[in-house]
């Protein structure tokens, strides 16, 4: 587990300040098929290596962040505010 996360708003913080929601997946269109929604809600890849997760900075700025990290080497590649990549339709 990466132990230091550099929040774009608060700076470098220990992981204890965050809670992890899970993989940052693209939300399907509201009219998407039931299979797509089932996959979005229940199915996860559980990859070994680099992937993106939603982290909530619960004890800091209380913003949802997307942490791009490697769960093998513990490298953190980037941390961005989830709102900054919000899709234009939302």
């Amino acid at each position, binding site marked *: 587990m990466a132990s230091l996360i550099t929040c774009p*708003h*608060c*700076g*470098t*913080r*220990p992981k*204890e*300040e965050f809670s992890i929601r899970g993989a940052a997946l693209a939300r399907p269109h509201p009219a998407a098929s039931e299979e797509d929604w089932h996959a979005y809600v229940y199915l996860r890849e559980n990859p070994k290596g680099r992937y993106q997760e939603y982290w909530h900075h*619960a*004890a*800091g*700025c*209380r*913003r949802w962040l997307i942490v791009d990290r490697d769960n093998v080497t513990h490298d953190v590649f980037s941390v961005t*505010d989830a709102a900054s990549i919000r899709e234009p339709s939302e």
Partner: protein
Amino acid sequence: MSLTLYHRHVLEDYLAGFEAKANPNHLSVIRRPAIFSVLAHRGNEASVKQALNSIEGALLHDCAPGEWLVVSTASGAAVVENLLGEITGASAIDQSDGRVLLRISGPNVRKILAKCVAVDLHPDAFSIGASANMLCCHVAANLARTGAEAFEIIVPRSFAGSVFEEMMEMGREFALTAAFAEW
């Protein structure tokens, strides 16, 4: 009847018995600060921050993008509420009863806080005027630097006792004292 309850600070029992004479390392508990949480509406962040900075006698604590705590010990809550109500594009809510304001200062303050927060408080990283939300003694608190050796900590009221006890424990080796202060 309600007046006696109103004037009773949540840390009243914790502070009973501490010596009155302040040592160099001292923790002040502000009796009745005015603390407001202010949120800027989307797109108004810069103008609201500018307006908040121009409020006289109030200190601005950063919480998150577009969110601040406005702390005033000089003016009462009603005065601050009126001033905040004049700012367009912002919502403010009175947190004076829900938060406890602590001020810690002294030559060893950074050594004490190093045992309470996991944030680098070196002046290069956390300069005077800087403030942020962070875990302080396992409680989500707001910490601000008000001087080279002075910090302000805002904690939720129900956690104030636990934070206070832990800070006094961490400050024991530096003879940290504590007392109420009016401002």
